């Protein structure tokens, strides 16, 4: 049976049908829909597959590793920068190895559609020495989930599945199979204790497994060869790069499609020996291009992003790939003249707006004030009309950067962080600040949800005062306010008072996200109608 599925949905359904027992994730574009699909899926509900959101990617990765230890199949999902957050657990899971199948899904965002960088998660797979799958189609994404779990259990290692925005957020018809049963509980009898003595042995085992991983890639149905008589050019096309190549040259090219790593070195050597030159087409950073150069040496020249044949940054497009292949299509019309950029904005009626209106007053009164921002809808406070933020770097960095700046003598130093980001990675930084009674004013703008990714549950809802007090906050400098236009003067006055205090203050403006509030109202109405 064929179903029209988003790439993310194909991944989710593929995992459920592969006998998944738990998905562990923190929301992040373009990966969010995977977990949301599992949360709404009938089989997942019937089987009781774990699908609640985690506090951050590290807790997700570790919980999944625990499920794997217990013998069941676990999936971890995140956007690419989430790999940085869980890197400690991820890299070491390759040393412990897996028991039940363990698949780590990283959704990269080349071109930074909704991200702060375009780091390529394949580096992480290579770094941790684990196999990587990279689907080119929604169908492959579905099929690979099963193959990845099987390979993980065969090799007893975690497997990385890397997708990019254009696959995650694109729909196509997918042929689906019958769901497999879950694994039975079967805890590992092996010691996963990474004391140096044990870790050394386990690392040696991981290195030994590399041969089997390369063999799996050489034999993989996902790495296929297409040949023609004209051997001028050989194309190594990775993931969705394959689609753009096919769009341009059809069946008229020598192509090695790469969708499983470590790279199939033998297949690459064969192509290099046959062809006059090699073009590497990969979405993201030039990971394969560098490796191909190393593998084939002087046998054939290698073109790609590093040689300027493809752009060094940004996602691949059918246009840039066609150009690299000398098949560029003519553009008929020039860009329009009467056209302006339309950046995203905070919704009308959003509580963050009222927080920024108050902060704007403060910034105008105190020219030396700096507001360190964080990651969420409220990062839009950096844009006009508010222009209130000096920084936004990574999850939780608002509090710690404000602290460091205050340590340097900057006054007033303020931080703005959302509720979900605070529990993700802000709490530990606040503890640092409290322990030193740093002169910072922290605003935890609490909209009771993870707003930017579409309104997922926020781990700390109803617990923020308790968390702050538990970390040692002085109750006299902990305030909760309601961000509404009529309260802006009072909120601004409260901020004035607290920046005058030479210590940690926390102000929590709390009002539900208007998007989730509208959704909750619709659901309540529906429930009421159903009762009638």
């Amino acid at each position: 049976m064929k179903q029209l599925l988003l790439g993310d949905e194909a991944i989710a359904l593929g995992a459920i049908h592969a006998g998944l027992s738990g998905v562990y994730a923190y929301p992040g574009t373009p990966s969010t829909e995977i977990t949301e699909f599992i949360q709404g899926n009938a089989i997942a509900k019937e089987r009781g597959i774990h699908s609640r959101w985690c506090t951050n990617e590290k807790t997700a990765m570790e919980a999944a590793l625990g499920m794997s230890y217990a013998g069941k199949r676990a999936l971890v999902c995140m956007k690419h920068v989430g790999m940085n957050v869980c890197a400690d657990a991820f890299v070491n899971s390759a040393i412990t190895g897996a028991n039940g199948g363990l698949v780590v899904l990283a959704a990269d965002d080349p071109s930074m559609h909704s991200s702060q960088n375009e780091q390529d998660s394949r580096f992480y797979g290579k770094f941790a020495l684990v196999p990587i799958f990279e689907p080119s189609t929604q169908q492959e994404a579905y099929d690979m989930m099963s193959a990845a779990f099987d390979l993980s259990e065969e090799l007893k290692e975690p497997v990385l599945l890397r997708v990019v925005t254009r696959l995650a957020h694109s729909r196509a018809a997918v042929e689906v199979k019958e769901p497999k049963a879950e694994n039975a509980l079967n805890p590992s009898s092996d010691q996963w204790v990474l004391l140096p003595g044990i870790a050394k042995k386990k690392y040696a085992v991981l290195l030994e497994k590399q041969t089997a991983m390369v063999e799996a890639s050489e034999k993989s149905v996902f790495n296929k060869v297409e040949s023609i008589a004209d051997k001028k050019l050989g194309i190594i096309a990775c993931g969705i790069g394959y689609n753009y190549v096919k769009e341009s040259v059809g069946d008229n090219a020598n192509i090695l499609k790469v969708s499983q790593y470590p790279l199939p070195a033998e297949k690459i050597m064969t192509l290099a020996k046959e062809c006059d030159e090699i073009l590497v087409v990969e979405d993201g950073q030039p990971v394969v291009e560098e490796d191909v150069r190393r593998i084939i040496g002087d046998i054939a020249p290698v073109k790609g992003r590093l040689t300027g044949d493809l752009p060094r940054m940004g996602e691949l497009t059918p246009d840039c790939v066609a150009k690299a292949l000398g098949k560029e299509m003519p553009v008929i019309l020039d860009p329009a003249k009467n056209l302006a950029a339309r950046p995203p904005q905070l919704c009308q009626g959003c509580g963050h707006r009222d927080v920024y209106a108050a902060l704007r007053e403060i910034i105008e009164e105190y020219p030396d004030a700096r507001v360190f921002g964080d990651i969420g809808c409220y990062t839009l406070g950096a844009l006009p009309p508010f222009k209130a933020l000096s920084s936004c770097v990574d999850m939780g960095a608002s509090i710690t950067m404000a602290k460091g700046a205050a340590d340097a003598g900057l006054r007033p130093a303020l931080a703005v962080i959302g509720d979900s980001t605070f529990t993700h990675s802000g709490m530990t930084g606040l503890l640092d600040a409290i322990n030193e009674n740093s002169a910072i004013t922290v605003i935890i703008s609490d909209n009771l949800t993870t707003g930017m990714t579409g309104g997922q549950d926020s781990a700390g809802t109803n617990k923020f005062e308790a968390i702050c007090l538990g970390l040692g906050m002085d109750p006299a400098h902990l305030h909760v306010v309601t961000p509404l236009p009529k309260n802006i003067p009072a909120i601004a006055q409260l901020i004035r008072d607290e920046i005058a205090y030479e210590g940690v203050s926390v102000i929590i403006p709390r009002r539900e996200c208007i998007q989730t509030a509208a959704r909750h109202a619709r659901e309540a109405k529906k429930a009421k109608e159903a009762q009638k």
Partner: protein
Amino acid sequence: MKKDIILCGVGGQGILSIATIIGEAATKAGINLKQAEVHGMSQRGGDVQSNLRLSTDTIYSDLIALGGADVVISMEPMESLRYLPYLSKDGVIVTSNKPFVNIPNYPEEEALFAELDSLPNTVVKLDIEQVAKDAGNARGANMVLLGMAAPYIEIVTIEQLRNAIATVFARKGEAIVEANLKAFDEGVKASK
């Protein structure tokens, strides 16, 4: 046969519902489809677009190439101009003629429409919100737009699109289905 369609507008205007209906019609008709969407940060009041590719042959790329779009369907006139370099020689623009102004530097309306009218391509414009209101379905502007575009989509018939509207809105009840079909029919009428 193939049709490459760019759907565009401002976040929240309902372009994804249009995509869903064309997708449903195409899938029922056994036509291959790929549809790339934009989620996340760009949804709130920013420009949004979706690349919808329909073909009787295999479709490889999820994205439409520059100069490759057969139809641009836009919920907003300035947004339709954003994709001019994607329009093919015989490409058609079907757009609302009602500006949605949420930025301070929105272009002069007169100049904007003059530019649209000066294009060598077929441009179909309509006040879809007014038509939807007159049809008694103020929220059905996107269905009016789909109706306007229907004669240019070709690869699925107008009847197949009507059936898809009935299927997609079925769970919302018969009244909603009827209201959306009426809005769609008004759009088809206006397009002719």
